[in-house]
């Protein structure tokens, strides 16, 4: 593993060149290009806010901020995995000509997506703290840890997916379907506390389901962490006319041990991804 990382370090100039290249292509060499790329998540969140506030009856001040704080990390996760799944096939003509550690290809895509994500978060922060006037949270100091944990997951998973997709080209379709499912299994358009309080689940199962949900889906813990570190605690009032009664949830503090477990698992997945990719990278050119 140490040699692997050293070799990647030796090729850092190539990695950086690929990252710049990817960002250039994405932003089409223009400053406005970055803002165009924010249009899609903003419109999506706007629609979600309208639906959940006025159709479903969620009563939360500044609801769109709570969605955005979880949705932007989600788009990072989603696009990093989808984009990097293609990289080996796209660069095959170069791969067939010369040696370089192939891992720089999916890694460059994940880093480009990371930079894009950080810029988008910067815009969110400007909006929240300068425009809306959200009080600054102490939790923000922990945010780099959450970003690191997410990056480790993204790196590990995208290396594995890029590798499989190089051998079986339909893997990317399975991944995109899987991501769609995972989106609804991640607290983005709802709050994970709802799982704990809902009367739809028998009381004895609520707690186990709640914790299993966060332990099995890395993005669930991360989305919860982003939300709780960036935004002030909330009291949710959920008025669903169909259900007849209003439901109330009190915000729970972020369980730090959950974040710790997530970080350790992320590190393990990143190491497994690197080692697995390294084991397979010679076979890309010999794919029958």
């Amino acid at each position, binding site marked *: 593993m140490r040699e692997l990382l050293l070799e990647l370090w030796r090729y850092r*100039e*190539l990695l*950086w*060149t*690929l990252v710049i*290249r990817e960002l*250039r*292509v994405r932003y089409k060499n223009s400053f406005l290009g970055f803002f165009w790329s924010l249009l899609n998540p903003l419109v999506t969140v706007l629609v979600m806010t309208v639906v959940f506030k006025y159709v479903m009856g969620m009563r939360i001040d500044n609801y769109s901020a709570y969605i955005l704080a979880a949705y932007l990390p989600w788009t990072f996760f989603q696009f990093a995995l989808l984009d990097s799944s293609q990289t080996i096939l*796209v*660069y*095959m*003509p*170069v*791969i*067939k*000509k*010369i*040696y*370089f550690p192939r891992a720089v290809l999916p890694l460059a895509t994940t880093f480009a997506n990371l930079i894009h994500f950080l810029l988008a978060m910067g815009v969110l922060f400007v909006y929240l703290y300068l425009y809306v006037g959200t009080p600054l949270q102490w939790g923000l100091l922990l945010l780099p840890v959450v970003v690191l944990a997410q990056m480790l997951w993204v790196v590990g998973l995208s290396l594995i997916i890029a590798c499989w997709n190089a*051998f*079986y*080209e*339909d*893997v990317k379709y*399975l991944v995109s379907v899987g991501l769609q499912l995972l989106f609804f299994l991640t607290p983005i358009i709802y709050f994970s506390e709802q799982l704990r309080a809902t009367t739809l689940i028998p009381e004895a199962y609520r707690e186990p389901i709640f914790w299993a949900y966060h332990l099995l889906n890395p993005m669930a813990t991360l989305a919860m962490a982003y939300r709780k570190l960036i935004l002030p605690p909330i009291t949710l009032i959920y008025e669903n006319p169909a259900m007849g009664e209003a439901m109330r949830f009190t915000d729970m503090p972020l369980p730090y041990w959950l974040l710790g477990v997530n970080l350790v698992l992320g590190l393990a997945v990143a190491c497994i991804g690197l080692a697995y990719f390294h084991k397979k990278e*010679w076979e890309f*050119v*010999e*794919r*029958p």
Partner: protein
Amino acid sequence: MGTLSQKGAEIAIRAQNLTKEFLLSHQPYSSLKGLLLAFLPKRMEHIVALKEVSFTIHQGETVGVIGRNGSGKSTLLGIIARVYRPTSGSITVNGRVAPLLELGAGFHPDLTGLENIYFNGVILGLTRRQVAERLPEIIAFAELEDYIDAPIRTYSSGMLMRLGFAIAAHVDADILLVDEVLAVGDARFQQKCYRKIHEFQEQGRTILFVSHDMEAVRQVAQRALWLDKGVLRADGEVNTVIEAYLQEAAATP
């Protein structure tokens, strides 16, 4: 064999019983279906691209590699560039290898010539700073001063070839792999490339030159390897090997 190897010079490339086999599938593309049907007998063919090939190339030599299509020439260059791992046998390469990269394929067509110089230079082992230092030279050699900021999708195949050669020629590689790309350029640029190749020879660099153009091989190489269906048929003085190769080509219908 290996008659012309300069005694005393350091070894640049040494191949010992180099063998490379490929699996060839008759399915158009690989899919999960293929994985699920893995238990069924597969229509796979074993292709032996190189068979027990041994040779030694010393630093400063220019070696032509000749042979019919599918004789293993590109596979051999691929193994030297560390793209393929040999199935058996061994390969030793001392020094940095620069294959001539074909621009266009695999490169983002929307990026400019300049951005592609950076990408190619870095992939061939330069730092970004070194690429920046050599930019004027590379652009001047490729004669693309007016087009370097244009996206390479607007380039002609000749322009792409010129840029590709210009980059590979300026990365200070110890071993240059030239694979049949010079054919695209016009006569004047070809002459320029040959002058550059002679410059490399004077600097004591090693060149492997793959071509179907026997005159070109004669012009640059002192020694030639003849590959025939993966077997090294001859290794020696360039004219002798080319004669043997052409005689057999004339004899086979």
